[in-house]
């Protein structure tokens, strides 16, 4: 934690003077017996009812029959657990800004009792997932409060070895950030790396874990997310039990887990809730969707600009027919539609749901239909672009689908310059880039590179639970077996009872 030299007062008097500038900082001076107590607090940070009923009332009650002598008496007099007595200025400051009231006695100057009266009002109570839906499976998501999130995780990982390490990040926000892992599973190397990187962060306000994601990532020159960020509890729990580290921060409903591989982003918890055949099928559809949305439009450009020979004769006719009136080269045609789709997405993401739907109809149907009628694009291209946009949204993690949609554009330009060769030049760059990426020092492309055949099991397909009882080898976990697979139940003979 870096300390801001200018605003950190050395003396308690100085601190109080600074604080008195704010109108929500209050000091009350209730009399307790014959002693004069003064209590200061931010009225916006504490629960004032708690102050009334638990502090002032109980102090006055006790003062009737016993004698208040020193600050330490507060600990026994007030029915609040979290009371601390200190004379360190930075400690007082930190606590005060986190919803503590400070109490002092006039004759005992310099020492303060810190009484925790904090409230967490104003945060949403509803913890349904907002952005990552699933048809089957739980809908519990994380919320903006760290303690509730940790509680949510603990309620599903019911073992004493779930470790939560809390550190403070951000010079201005002093956000509480928790590193969560399972002690006898996760490789300590990853925990240490995360902790070191988090401690090294020098940044002012942490709004969201996405910022931490970027601040601690291995490589900032990449469109790919190197940590998986999710708001689903089942996803975080799954990551934890496979041996990854999760980072959650106060004020953010998203958790980031790492080290993650490229494949993690295409898995959905639903794969595991459906029968494995269906789970595998949907997963393959998703991976195919990614490939399709990356290359479909650039393939269209390559073929229509350079390699007409590739199209079979029967297909050539409708293609030429649809492009006959289009006055633009394929590149402009594609860019026009792709950017329209991006506009729709960007506008739709910021609008309220109801307007968003209307916009989708206006944008999708009206604009699409009108551009074809006006002869600005060919209708085959409208189909391809719409397909690939749809396919890109099949990726379960939003950040990954953003990366994929972004990567379409370099591909489009490359293939408009050098046709199919250009497209493969783009792919070449992409593959080299991917093989150089690491997440917390672990190769991003594992289990493809470095190839680990055993871990390939749970990548393209989702095998039956019998075969995925071990943790992935590339995570180098401390214990490898998750559970003992049950015996396959097979009838030996036809119709035998």
């Amino acid at each position, binding site marked *: 934690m870096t300390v801001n030299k200018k605003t950190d007062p050395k003396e308690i008097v100085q601190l109080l003077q600074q604080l008195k500038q704010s109108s929500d900082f209050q000091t009350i001076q209730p009399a307790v017996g014959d002693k004069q107590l003064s209590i200061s607090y931010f009225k916006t940070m504490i629960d004032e009812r708690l102050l009334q009923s638990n502090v002032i009332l109980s102090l006055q009650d006790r003062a009737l029959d016993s004698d208040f002598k020193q600050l330490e008496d507060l600990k026994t007099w007030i029915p609040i657990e979290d009371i601390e007595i200190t004379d360190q200025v930075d400690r007082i400051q930190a606590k005060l800004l986190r919803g503590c009231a400070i109490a002092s006695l006039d004759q005992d100057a310099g020492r303060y009792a810190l009484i925790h009266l904090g409230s967490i009002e104003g945060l949403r109570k509803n913890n349904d997932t907002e952005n990552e839906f699933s048809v089957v499976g739980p809908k519990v998501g994380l919320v903006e409060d760290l303690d509730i999130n940790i509680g949510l995780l603990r309620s599903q990982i019911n073992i004493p070895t779930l470790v939560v390490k809390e550190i403070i990040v951000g010079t201005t926000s002093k956000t509480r950030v928790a590193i969560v892992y399972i002690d006898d599973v996760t490789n300590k190397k990853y925990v240490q790396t995360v902790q070191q990187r988090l401690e090294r962060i020098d940044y002012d306000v942490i709004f969201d874990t996405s910022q931490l994601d970027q601040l601690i990532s291995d490589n900032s020159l990449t469109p790919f997310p190197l940590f998986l960020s999710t708001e689903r509890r089942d996803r975080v729990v799954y990551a934890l039990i496979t041996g990854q580290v999760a980072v959650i921060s106060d004020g953010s409903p998203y958790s980031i887990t790492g080290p993650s591989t490229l494949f993690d982003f295409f898995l959905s918890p639903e794969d595991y809730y459906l029968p494995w055949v269906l789970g595998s099928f949907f997963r393959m559809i998703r991976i195919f969707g990614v490939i399709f949305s990356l290359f479909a439009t650039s393939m269209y450009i390559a073929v229509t600009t350079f390699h007409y020979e*590739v199209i079979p004769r029967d297909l050539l006719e409708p293609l030429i027919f649809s492009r006959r009136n289009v006055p633009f080269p394929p590149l402009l045609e594609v860019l026009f539609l792709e950017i329209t789709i991006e506009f729709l997405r960007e506008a739709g993401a910021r609008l309220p749901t109801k307007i968003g739907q209307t916009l989708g109809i206006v944008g999708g149907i009206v604009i699409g239909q009108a551009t074809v009628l006006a002869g600005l694009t060919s209708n085959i291209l409208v189909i391809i672009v719409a397909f690939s946009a749809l396919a890109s949204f099949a990726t379960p993690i939003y950040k990954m689908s953003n990366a994929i949609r972004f990567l379409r554009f370099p591909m489009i330009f490359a293939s408009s310059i050098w046709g199919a060769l250009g497209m*493969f030049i783009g792919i*070449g760059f992409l593959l080299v880039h991917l093989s150089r990426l690491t997440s917390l020092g672990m190769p991003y492309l594992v289990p493809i590179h470095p190839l680990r055949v055993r871990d390939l099991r749970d990548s393209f397909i989702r095998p039956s639970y019998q075969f995925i009882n071990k943790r992935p080898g590339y995570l180098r976990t401390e214990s490898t077996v998750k559970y003992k697979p049950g015996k396959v139940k097979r009838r030996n003979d036809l119709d035998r009872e």
Partner: protein
Amino acid sequence: MSQVTSEQYTISPYLIIFPLYVGMVGVGILTYQRRVMEHAGYNSWVSLIITGLSMHLLLWMLYKILSSIEDSRDIVAINHKLFGKWLGNLINLAIVLYFVLGAFVKFKVYVEMIQVWLFPSMNFLPVSIVILLIVYYAVSGGLRSVTGIAVWATMISCLSIVPQVSLTFPYLHPMNLLPLFNHSATDILLSSKDMGFEYLGFETLLFIYPFVKTPEKSQKWAHLIMILVTLLYLMILILAFMFFTEEQLLHTIWPTLNMIGIFEVPLLQRLEYMAVSLWFIKIIAGISIFIWAACRGMKLAFHFRPRISLIVFLAAITVSSYFIIDHRTVEWVSKMYANVGLYFIYAYIPFIFLCVMVRKRLASRATPANE
């Protein structure tokens, strides 16, 4: 010269198959049928097997060479040990240049292939620069990223072989292979010699070896990939034999691509356009592994910073590929590379092997005498 390679740069033993595969199999696999059958005709599959076997012998020698001398586990150190500083470095320089030449030939042959199949009248300078930028990006990530792209290249080429074989099936004439033996042993051996060129590239092992975690364990993998490559060559050769007649094949420059050109899948025809582009991934992997070996050699022998030698090599390749345009010169260069390469693997490696063995024998005789 430290021989211990830090853990974070090493690769697992089985990963050795990928750099070896992309090193060996290049554009050659699209054209070798004609060259191989020049002497032995339809019997040249025998020559191919002979060459394959000889490669196993050479690979075994390589492993013996690299594992025999303690604390010198790459060719630069071995040359220093055997021939002294000056002569050793001269040989090392030659080896480095040989690898650069190999990369250049791989690159230039591919560029020619694009010229023939995709863009006959294209200015190639921009494309070459972009291609070599990718190579730079891959090589500057070290052996691990080079292996990464090699893994992809291997997977892509494996995936592309399956449809190739299955789609040729209806067009095959198995009777073409008969009669089984109608060429003399000399012809068959001459064809074997021509085939040797297609295997060049496994000698990058001379530099990769110290980067393998427990390198001794990688030997079985290296032999495995050698068998697989031989089988691959054999399969494609026999497919071509059954697809073309002997006369036809002698006049076909790109038999594999011509075969691919016949196929039609529902959405696409003339698949060779895609195949030529797809080959790109494999080519950059091949070039990367050669250039990496050359940079490594420069670093070990002359303490050049790899990044600088990388830039110098790539610049040299760009410039020379800009000036060497006509097909005859390219053919001459690749012929020369083939000859040098054959001497390198069939003469230099056995020679070093003998030297190392003799040295080892002497050393083992010397030690008991000391006791």
